[in-house]
């Protein structure tokens, strides 16, 4: 039920519902961006039941992945 997907904002709709287009891979859907006032075109949002509920922090997302790469390198050095 709490299934959410990250999608990229293609355009912002008009208030109050702010129905903008959001791309999930090749699939584009209309999503309400009314609850993510900080979201911008090109950015990623977390979408649940047709509504964006959070803005994805891309810097933090990369940090975690970089950390995994470091961990893997560490493991190679000290097996």
């Amino acid at each position: 039920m709490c299934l959410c997907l990250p999608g990229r904002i293609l355009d912002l709709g008009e208030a109050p519902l702010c129905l903008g287009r959001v791309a999930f891979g090749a699939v584009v859907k209309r999503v309400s961006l009314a609850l993510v006032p900080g979201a911008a075109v090109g950015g990623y949002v977390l979408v649940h039941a047709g509504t964006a509920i959070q803005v994805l922090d891309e810097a933090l997302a990369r940090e975690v992945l970089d950390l995994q790469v470091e961990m893997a390198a560490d493991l190679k050095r000290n097996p």
Partner: protein
Amino acid sequence: MKFLDEYRDGAAVQPLLEALRRRTTRPWTLMEVCGGQTHSILRFGIDQLLPPSIRLIHGPGCPVCVTPVAFIDKALAIAERPGVIFCSFGDMLRVPGSHSDLFRVKSRGGDVRVVYSALDAVQLALREPEREVVFFAVGFETTAPANALAAREALRLGLANFSMLVSQVRVPPALELLLASGAAQVDAFLAAGHVCAVMGTVEYLPIAARYHVPIVVTGFEPVDLLRGILECVVQLEEGRAEVANAYERLVPSGGNPTARALMAGVFQVVDRTWRGLGLIPRSGMALAEAYAQLDAEQRFGVSDLGGTDSPLCRSGEVLLGILDPQNCPAYGTRCTPEHPLGATMVSAEGACAAHYRYRRPRED
């Protein structure tokens, strides 16, 4: 898909598993609260990859599973009315009420429709002014903002033919109940990442402190799940019990303030009965006074309808993490996804259904 596939990468998973093997010295039992995480864990076989002394047990975080029979009966009574278009998320349709389910109502001619969003139901009410459109608003804090948005929009449009049957639930009171009851011996919790994307982490601070239990906000992909599990184990091994966040990219500590403000205006916190668990104080959300005109229970006079679970279904014990689905006498025999006795066998996120689908008994 970007920001999804990278977190399923086997190469990124290996060092986390190795770190877990190095850090684990004792047996630990962790509960994943969210049904979506239960599904991911069984789907990706995460439980099979862990050191054998780490045990994962499934929690009550499936809104489909905990919606009480009384609410299903109310939904059925409304959906059977001529002139009503009853809108629901798809996974509610096969959940058994006392005597029937929404699929059967539909097959007998009831106008039951699956919608993707509460806003779709509002659009439908606009297009069909002669019909009563009712939306079945179930879900945790993840779903509450979308449902609240639909309620606000219906009021703004002055839609007289739209109403909501609201059975919304909140996670923290259920966690408290689990810990206070002592039913399941849980050493640490993986908190539901998408609930926290809305609510943030603040609500969990007093629970972690009072019960001295680590609570780690965790996502849904293998890398996310293993980072959450590792953080739990590290805290347990060091004797710490803190709220931590292993889903940083989507969970700021304050959650989503815009969504929370909207929810606070549309809903009020109420006591709620959970299927299999009983009444949990302050565990539900109902429409606030200002939105009472949208209340389908009042509009259709179904407030007093009640119902009881199948006596054969032991989903309450499954939801508390006491009973493993495969140890239920009805599992796979009298209770299957095609003919479910209880909701945990219906929803893809129900522990019984997830076990049935991916059936991989743990080899201890």
